[in-house]
Each structure stands twice: as structure tokens, then as C-alpha cells.
């Protein structure tokens, strides 16, 4: 009820039906592993239905148990039952999905598996079933994945059974589709890509898991389908560039290819890839602001979500060195570099800049690429200008910086006026260069 956390204040009634024992299918997958960990961290007991036993099952102190299941099998009889320290299951989150199927679409394994699961949960009276669907779910989706997800959604009966349409999941260990994207952006400085302009709605894997857990506990869902995705879509090509920049510190140029080439590629691509290309080409935007606000979920900022904190800190220390060397001409002390990194992590957006490699060797070159001032509000988030502002404040409070900024001896009016004039003339000469180069480094 208190709005002081700034997160919009969740309605407490929504959250007071938190499950105590949750069953997760696909618990070994990219999202599944995180979801299992989060559920355990919340103090829940978890039953994982999957093909192979969980690693670390023993380590979780008996709060997680595994039951053998694959999409083609009948559901194990005791999957949802209590036993030992486990109460009967009060929620199921169904993440398992098979991307490639040899069966005809009407007999897709994913359709059959859901029928089986629903039948079992309804028989057992499990209070809540959350089906992990996708923003691609549409009756006429270009890819089978989207069509199958949609057909499965139709089988759910509100209020016990609901679907979460999850957007493009990123972050965490490089597995699944996220791992695929990470490998893609590291192939080289230029990446030809179809569907570069298609809108994607990224969501951090931890935010997605948080959303799924909240849906598992939601008291009285008003509808069958909830969207867990970024409210503001990002063009796919730009998203790839952000992954390269924020996560790997590299510049990536995405070369947009016409959609026709994507269709042509389907003929030669493996089925898995083909499905994803179709999905991308058919992507539309799903409205989700109300859904997120409804259960008080505030998604983390995309830029910060892509950055890994430990790697970010290392890169920020290096960034601090470059900026201070540019401003003062001397290397900063380790303490000053640490203050810079800490300042950016705590009071900035924590995302390291992607500065051209030459500036790491010759920081003075930064003068050529400082963006020409826009005057008022920056359209982009924190960029080079803002970081230089921070660095200037930091050096102002050091002996070397203070010596550069504050003249306690005085040089007389003529020397001062000439120095100012000389600097201003130099800046005027530099201005056109900055206009051209600086625009790319805001």
C-alpha cells in the first residue's frame, strides 16, 4: 500500500494467495532454471517435471523434488500430490515446450501435453495453472510455435487456469534463445539480419520469473491472458546492438535484409531457426501496461538489464580512467576510479559506455567526439556528456583537478583573456568535427 518504493504499489490482496508448493515443467530450461531458483528462494517447495533429474536437487535441502516426465508421456500420478514435507501442489507453471516436432500440427506434442496436464490438474483440484505462452500467440501466426501456443491458450478455463504471454526473454546465463542471440551478436562487427525493424518487447528473465510467480499467486484474475513484456517495443536490430554494446562492450552494425530473403532462408534453415525467423517476421506489439500495473510489476530498464554488474564495474573502472585522463592529462588514482564506478552504478544508470578503442589508448581524442551540446533535455539516456559531467565533479574534489580548475594565484587580465580567446577559437574549429563524429556517441 505504501508508494514509497516508487514501484507503483501492488494491491496486497493480489499477493496474499502465494502458493506453498509449486510444480514447474521445463525446469531445466533457460527460464525454468531461474524460476526454480526464485521459487526456492521465496521459501516455496518445488516439484520439477522434466526429462532429466535436476542437478543440485540434494543441495536445495529437500525442498525440490523431481518427477520424470516428457511431453509425450502421461503425467506422473503423484506429480501434484503432497508427500513427506510437501503439501499438495497449489500451483503449476508450465514452461516446457518442444520447438521442433515431426508430428502434424493437429497432433503437436505440445497440444497433447497440455491436454494431459490440464486433465491431471483439474482432477487433483490444483488451484492455479499458469501456461507460459508467448507474445507470438495468434491463431494465424506465421510460425507453428505461435499457432500452437494460441490453440493451447483456448483450452484454459479462467479463473483457475491463465496464460502468461511472455515477450523476448533476455539476461542471465546464455542459454536457449537468449544464448542464440548472444552468439549472433559476437559473430562480427556487421550482422546482416532479416526483420531488423520488427518490434520486440524484451523482458529480463528475472522479471519474467517474478511475473510468473505473481501470476501463480494471483487471487482473482479478471481475464485469461496476461502479457509479461516490455510496454515499449524496441526494433529487433537495435535490440541486437544493445546486447552487443551493453553486455559485450562491442559496437555492432546490423545490416537490414529484406523480408523476402527471410522467406528464402526458410528453405535452407533448420526447422528451429526457421520457426524463429517466422516468429520475428510476424511480430506485432502486445499492449501490456495495465497487466504489469495490475500486479505491481515494474520491469527493469533494458539497458541496465543487459549489463552484468561485475563486468560493468570492470568496464566502468576503465571508463573512469579514460575520462579522467582526457580531462586532466594524468592517470587517476585507483581510489578515484573506484569512486567513478561506484557513482555511475549508484547514481547513474550503471551501463558502461561503448567508447571507440582508440580513446582507450589516446584519451585526448575524446575531445573530437564529445557531442555538440543540445542545450536542454537529452533525448538519449546517459551518454558521454553526462559521464563527463560526473567525472568533472569527481576531479573537482581532488587536488589535481582543483589545481586545474581553480587559480589561486591569478595570471592577470591579459593572460586570462588571451587564454580564453585561444580556447574559444580552438573550440570553434573543433565544432564541425564534433557535429559529425559526436552524434554517434551520445
Amino acid at each position, binding site marked *: 500500500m505504501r508508494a*514509497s518504493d516508487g514501484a507503483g504499489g501492488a494491491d496486497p490482496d493480489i499477493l496474499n494467495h502465494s502458493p506453498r508448493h509449486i510444480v514447474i515443467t521445463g525446469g531445466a530450461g533457460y527460464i525454468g532454471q531461474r524460476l526454480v531458483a526464485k521459487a526456492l528462494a521465496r521459501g516455496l517447495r518445488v516439484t520439477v517435471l522434466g526429462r532429466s533429474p535436476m542437478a543440485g536437487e540434494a543441495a536445495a535441502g529437500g525442498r525440490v523434488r523431481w518427477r520424470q516426465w516428457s511431453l509425450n508421456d502421461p503425467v506422473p500420478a503423484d506429480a501434484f500430490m503432497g508427500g513427506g514435507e510437501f503439501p499438495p501442489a497449489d500451483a503449476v507453471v508450465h514452461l516446457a515446450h518442444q520447438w521442433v516436432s515431426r508430428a502434424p500440427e493437429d497432433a503437436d506434442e505440445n497440444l497433447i501435453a497440455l491436454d494431459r496436464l490440464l486433465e491431471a490438474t483439474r482432477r487433483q483440484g490444483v488451484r492455479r495453472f499458469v501456461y507460459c505462452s508467448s507474445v507470438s500467440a495468434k491463431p494465424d501466426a506465421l510460425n507453428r510455435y505461435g499457432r500452437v501456443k494460441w490453440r493451447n491458450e483456448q483450452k484454459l478455463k479462467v479463473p483457475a487456469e491463465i496464460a502468461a504471454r511472455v515477450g523476448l526473454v533476455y539476461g542471465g546465463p546464455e542459454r536457449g534463445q537468449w544464448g542464440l542471440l548472444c552468439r549472433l551478436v559476437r559473430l562480427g562487427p556487421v550482422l546482416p539480419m532479416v526483420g531488423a525493424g520488427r518490434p520486440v518487447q524484451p523482458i529480463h528473465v528475472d522479471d519474467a520469473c517474478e511475473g510468473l510467480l505473481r501470476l501463480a499467486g494471483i487471487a482473482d484474475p479478471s481475464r485469461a491472458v496476461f502479457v509479461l513484456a516490455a510496454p515499449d517495443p524496441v526494433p529487433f536490430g537495435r535490440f541486437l546492438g544493445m546486447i552487443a554494446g551493453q553486455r559485450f562492450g562491442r559496437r555492432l552494425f546490423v545490416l537490414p535484409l529484406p523480408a523476402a530473403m527471410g522467406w528464402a532462408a526458410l528453405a535452407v534453415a533448420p526447422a528451429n531457426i526457421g520457426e524463429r525467423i517466422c516468429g520475428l517476421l510476424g511480430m506485432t506489439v502486445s499492449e501490456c501496461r495495465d497487466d504489469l500495473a495490475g500486479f505491481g510489476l515494474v520491469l527493469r530498464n533494458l539497458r541496465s538489464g543487459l549489463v552484468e554488474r561485475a563486468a560493468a564495474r570492470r568496464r566502468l573502472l576503465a571508463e573512469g580512467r579514460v575520462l579522467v585522463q582526457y580531462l586532466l592529462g594524468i592517470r587517476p588514482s585507483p581510489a578515484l576510479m573506484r569512486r567513478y564506478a561506484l557513482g555511475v552504478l549508484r547514481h547513474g544508470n550503471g551501463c558502461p559506455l561503448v567508447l571507440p578503442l582508440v580513446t582507450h589508448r589516446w584519451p585526448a581524442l575524446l575531445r573530437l567526439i564529445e557531442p555538440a551540446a543540445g542545450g536542454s533535455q537529452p533525448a538519449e539516456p546517459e551518454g558521454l556528456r553526462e559521464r563527463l559531467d560526473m567525472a568533472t565533479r569527481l576531479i573537482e574534489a581532488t*587536488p589535481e583537478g582543483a589545481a586545474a580548475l581553480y*587559480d589561486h594565484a591569478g595570471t592577470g587580465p591579459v593572460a586570462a583573456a588571451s587564454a580564453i580567446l585561444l580556447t574559444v577559437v580552438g573550440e570553434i574549429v573543433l565544432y564541425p568535427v564534433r557535429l559529425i563524429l559526436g552524434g554517434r556517441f551520445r
Partner: protein
Amino acid sequence: MTEPDVIVVGGGPAGTAASWPLVARGIRVLMLDAGIASAAADPRPPLAALRRGGDDAWRHMLGKDLRGLRDVGDVSPKLRILAGEDFGEPYRALNRIFPEGIDVMGALAAGGLSNVWGAVSPAFDDDDLREWPITAADLASGYAAVADRIGLNGGDGDPRPESAYPLQPALPLSMKAERLLERYDRRRARLDIRLARSVNAVLSADKSGRSACNLDGGCMWGCPRGSIYNSAGEIPALASHPCFALAAGQLVERIEAAPAGFVVHAFDRGTGQSRTHTAKTVLLAAGAVASTRIVLDLLGRYGEDVPLATTPALAMAFCDPRALGQPLPDKGFGLAQLSLKVDLGGASSEYAYGELYDGAMLSAADLIRHMPLTHRGAMAVIRRLMPALMVGFVFFPSGFSRNIVRLERGNGTEPARLSVRGGYAPELSATARRARSRIAGDLGSVGLLYLPGSGRLYPPGAESHFGGTLAMGRALSAECEVVGANNLFVVDGAALPHLPAKPPTFTIMANASRVGTRLAERLRV
């Protein structure tokens, strides 16, 4: 304390000014303040020492937690370092204030915005008060009482309203400012602007346990000596009266009228629980925007657009060429040194009011970020320019603002929300440009050169002068009593019908003192 006679909501300058006359007559006052008692200000070395660098200079210049690195946008430089976690977003969140296109700054700390104010204290004359249902004579004893209690310095015999009140000797000006004033005095008949020493709520002589200003120049980084008036400093003196009690950490969310008086619903920030306080009479001084929300909620005025007055602010930078290349002074005064007034022409006698600061007492980094040069280039320029720099902030009367507040019901049991939309009158940019030219022209003719391109209009609310929402003569009586809610009074900026360009705090305090005095008489009868 048994049930108090009066609850005062807010321990800022207005609430404190209203409490004194009540307490002096033995009326039982309970002050509710959102601030939680916190540690005293860290002593800081003089600015000159900080500027020679020391290994620990960063702690004082940026804060232990480096909060001086925040991008707080276009606000007063003081807000960068002095505004802690209790300022800004937490204030807005707990007070359910949702701004759009306007900065609404507030503080949940003891002393409120007097922790970060510029302390310039002009008094309003009858012309300034022409839209008010009271006159300057009505405010005179309030002004005098406040001036006497908090200590103002300045004045030079110039016939200004504030010269009528007790003033301590003026603090010395910088050499640039002295020179400017001298040259101005010689040419004043030929100039449109009026220039004079500022009258500030800063002590030039020790008073009531606070030390006189020692010109250490670090005003922008806080005043641990207490020379700059901060209402938090008055609480111990008030608390020494047995009829006064302070309940700290109380954020008032709602006031309810009851048969026996008012029930004040507060959120206790210490325990996280709700608490209620009751009294027959309530004086609201929670800050103009917060008080407005509370009163509109009480009166059930939902969905109504209520105009909010602010004073649009313009920044200008100047250079005194004769001070170029001078050594940076070791001592100086970091708040406003000179005040200026310029008529805006047109039908009414509206004017713009400006304050000139010594640029040498500001943060070089703050100046650099506004220069259209590379950082390296700006550093080289600032080093030579700072001793010669003067920075001006010019305010325009509230007739040029076009802000609206609207109270919306909360969802379910959530409290009501106040949305605030900011804007300027279309004629402001032309007026501001003309005023800027006139000021630049006149000051240029007395040797202070305007730096072209340095003129910038701030977003609405950046100057934190708010008023007009519950004006005397409209929503309030001339005694500041809420129409439709007897015994509820509003004594902060919300009560002011109109804001001339002059900073209003001294006047708000004088009015609060007036209302407190009249109320005390009423209650004692």
C-alpha cells in the same frame, strides 16, 4: 500532551512562524512534521580549503554516498549536494503528487525547503499585494516579528519595503559586486533597472545560538554554522515551551472534519503505521502543493482544475572583464549579493526580480556542464573566467505561469492523487527576451558584460515558488481560514493569491505570523 488546542502541520518556515505567537500566549500547539530527527550537519572545511583539494574533499563536495553525482537536471546547485534521500521523489510519492512538465520539489526533512533556500528576503509592498485582501500595513508586524527573530542582513538605506524592518549590518560584497554597485549608483538615473544589495536571512552577527556568517564561501554546500536561516534550528527553542510538542516523522495524508474538530490522519514514517491526531483547530503549512491536496480532498473538490502560481525563472551569466585573471578569492559570500528589479512595461506595474550571485562561489563543474564547449575546453575557460563571473537568476510574476493542479480520487482505499501540470503563458518568451536585453544592456553599460547564449529559461517549478491554489479572498478568508471548514487555516504559499516576481518566503512567514497572532487572540478570548 493532552489534546492540543492547535495542530500545526509542517515545521518549515511557515509552520514555525505561525507557531511562535501561539506558543507565546500559552496555547497548546502540537506540530506534526514529516522529518525524522536526524544527525546535525557535518562540519565542513571552508570552500578555499576544499578547493585546494585534500584527500577527503570529495566527502564534503559530493557527499559520503557520492550523491552529488546525481543528474538532478536544471535545479539550484544547492539541491545537488544538500538534498538527501528525503527530498524530491520520496516527498512526491508520499504526498501523492504526480507532476507533468513541472518540477515539484519538496522535502520530508525537518526544516523543509529552508534546508536549500537562497535566503533572499524582500518584503512585499502594497503594489505587490494588490490582488490580496490585506495590505502591507496588515503584514507589517508579522514582517517585523520574523525579521527580529530570524535575523536579516543587508540594506543600504535604499528606500525599499524591507528597510523598514530590523536589519543587521550588511555582509561585505565581492569586489566585483562593490564595483558594479558603485558604477550603477553613478549612472542610475539613466538606467531602467534598479540594483541594490540583497537583504538575506543570513546572520552578520551572532544571534540566539547561531553564528554569524564567516564568509567561508561554501554556502552551496550547506551552512554548518547555522548562519543561513533554517527553520529546523528553531525547533529546540519552541520545544522549550511546555505548551509546545513536536511529533516527528508524521506525514499528514488526510484531514477529516469531525463534530469536535478535526481528525488528522498521518503516516508515521518511523513505525510504518497510521496514526491520528485530533484538535479543534488546524494550521496547514505542509508546503503549497501538499497543503492544496489535503484541503481539496477535505472539501471533496475532485476532478477540478485549480490554477497553481509559480514564478518562471531565467538564468543569465555575466563577466566583469576587469576581474579576469584575478586570483580566486579565499573568502566570499555564496548566496545572492545583489538584487535587481526591472519593469516589464505593459499595462500593469509588473516587474521582473533578479538575484546576482558571485560565480566564484559556485561549483566549477556545475558551470562547465552548461557551457557549449568540450569539457576540456570549458575547464580551460572556467579557470580564467570564474573570478570574473556573476550568475543571475531572474524571476517573473506568476501571471506568466499556466500550471494546473487537479485532485483525483484514489482507486479503492488508496488516497487521493494530485496531478500537477506545468506550463508557461505564450507571451513569456517574448517578455523574457525583452527583460533579458534590458538587463544585459543596462548592466553592460556599467561594466558587467552579459555572456551571449547563457540565457536559459528554467522549467516550471524549478525555482520552487508555489502559490495561488487556495488563495486568501477565494478559497480562504482574509484570515486564511478555509471557506467551508471553520477552524482550518492554510498559512503556507498556497494562501498567496498571486506571486509577484520577488521571492515569497519572507512574506509567507510574515503572513503565517499574522495568522498565528490573530488566531491566538481569538482563542484566548
